[in-house]
């Protein structure tokens, strides 16, 4: 952030629409749930989902909006994580998922995010958080040091998704990774019939401002899994936030969440 932007946030102030400019330089900042309120410190009432969250922080004008899309997979992820697990959430945003895991599952969580405002929100929730860039990898995290490593709708914005996946499989005994399925029927219709890049609830960006640089389909991901040598131990398919049976999932699932076994490799 340049000095001129400090405290100003005019570029982002109140910009909660998907058409807002994506933040410059953020490697994985631009997932649908965090871009609109990225560096904003503009005036405006924080509209926060959690009573123990950022709203308590003096001066935080973060335009954090309740975002149903972001929470699609939270219930499912909370359901997958056993009580007392240690969890590393990559691209944790404001720490809502980690707070739920702590409160509902007694999990010991830690988050990683790239944005200063998100760091403050996490700290306000009592979540340990590390401000860092996932594109730098996880080299300083020992192998198998967490029960779960989570990457929630962030895979598509990192520069080296394969490297990050491998690192997650090394660091976590289990990995949870969720992503928007690009082959979802509504995306196909927009592309095939309307001849336009899809703009949907899970992919709310125009082609020129999307942070999503590595979109894939369910099939693509499974193919990569075969190459990397992992088979999902659990597949959760979601459409409009509701779990659907994995029938013709590549066509009917809007979003997919996989639970993978760690590679156990040092």
């Amino acid at each position: 952030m340049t000095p001129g932007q400090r405290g100003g946030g005019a570029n982002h102030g109140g910009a909660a629409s998907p058409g807002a400019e994506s933040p410059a330089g953020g490697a994985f900042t631009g997932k649908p749930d965090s871009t609109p309120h990225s560096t904003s410190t503009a005036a405006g009432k924080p509209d926060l989902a959690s009573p123990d969250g950022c709203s308590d922080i003096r001066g935080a004008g973060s335009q954090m909006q309740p975002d149903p899309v972001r929470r699609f997979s939270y219930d499912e992820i909370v359901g997958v994580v056993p009580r007392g697990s240690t969890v590393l959430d990559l691209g944790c945003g404001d720490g809502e998922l980690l707070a739920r895991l702590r409160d509902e599952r007694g999990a010991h969580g830690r988050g990683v995010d790239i944005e200063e405002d998100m760091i403050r929100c996490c700290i306000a929730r009592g979540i340990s958080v590390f401000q860092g860039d996932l594109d730098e990898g996880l080299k300083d995290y020992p192998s198998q040091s967490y029960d779960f490593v989570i990457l929630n709708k962030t895979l598509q914005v990192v520069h080296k998704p394969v490297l990050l996946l491998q690192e997650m499989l090394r660091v976590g005994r289990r990995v949870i990774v969720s992503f928007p399925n690009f082959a979802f029927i509504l995306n196909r219709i927009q592309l095939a019939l309307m001849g336009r890049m899809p703009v949907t609830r899970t992919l709310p960006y125009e082609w020129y401002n999307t942070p999503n640089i590595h979109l894939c389909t369910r099939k693509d991901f499974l193919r990569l899994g075969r190459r990397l040598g992992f088979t999902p131990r659990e597949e959760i398919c979601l459409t409009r936030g509701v779990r659907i049976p994995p029938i013709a999932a590549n066509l009917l699932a809007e979003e997919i969440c996989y639970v993978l076994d760690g590679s156990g490799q040092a």
Partner: protein
Amino acid sequence: MAPDRTRQDKPPATSPLGIVEPQSFSFGAPGSGLVLDSGKEFGPVTVRYETYGTLDAERSNAILLLHAFSGDAHAAGLHSSTDTHPGWWEPMVGPGRAFDTNKYFVICSNTLGGCHGTTGPSSIDPNTGKPYGMSFPVVTIHDMVKVQVKLLDHLGIDRLLAVAGGSMGGMQALEWATTYSHRVRSAVVLASSARMSAQGIAFNAVGRNAITGDPRWNNGDYYEGEPPARGLAIARMVGHITYLSDESMGMKFGRRLQERDSFEFDMEDQFAVESYLEYKGGTFVDRFDANSYIYISRAIDYFDLADKYGSLDAAFAETTTKFLIVSFTSDWLYPPYHSKEIVYSLMKNGKDVSYTEISSPYGHDAFLLESHRQEGIVDAFLETAFQQAREGQNGARR
């Protein structure tokens, strides 16, 4: 900032804390009271400190602020109604600020070896009736912390809610959180390091050489005559360069000339940055003791938690303190990787640590300048620690 403007008389400053009274506490007797890291026994020691806010009945809301190299016990508030400057951390300390004096009891003391009221080389040696000068013992960051521990004992505070400091103050916070972890619930470490880098030591060495190379230094025995002002000013100039950054110097001064619009190619051509350094060096000698500069810079150079405990991981193995580590992108004296090293080690040990790397052009000075950026983060961190402390106490009562 144009030096000639800063030289003008400033109007009196204001502070929500109003006028604060410095206090003193002494312990020990000649040759005893404090066992130093060197093995030497030293005393007596006087500690200058200030407090802001009120200690609660459970004595659970105390926060110790730890100043940097040239700081002092005067963290906030004013010393008189005509004071032109509030304390060094005024934007962070006060009612409703990050170190909220409505909630917390905030303490700041001058460090051992300093020259602002706590015993240092310019203090009188009771054995000789003269200033210690270079007969003052070598002190370390841990020795400074030992004096702070004595102060807390004196104030009747068993466990601090937090220690907080930047740069050398951050080193003290780390020392607290490792060696005296049971007495600190949380630690805020800004722009600091678990060990001084070779580069940092090198700059300190230049500063010390500037002082000792000044004939007026006279082996540290100058208190009855003229102090080594030129040497100390040069030391401060070097220090100031390390506190800024290429970008901040470019923004602040560029290639501007101080008094002229164009070069006249004589020795009077002076760049704005030169003038600034001269000014900073010149004002420093009025408020700092050259021998203190030597002792404190050496204490910083000695600091190495990894060496002390065998490794950084070992240093943090037993800590129960919760950490907030903050670095600044353009800080090349205590670069972010120094902070990350601490964070990764704490994470490896499964400790409670949060880390933020604030994007700032102001170099090392950012930890004093970017208050509005730190405020929300520090405030949130302290609030959580405060809540946990209260829950802990309630739990213990149950």
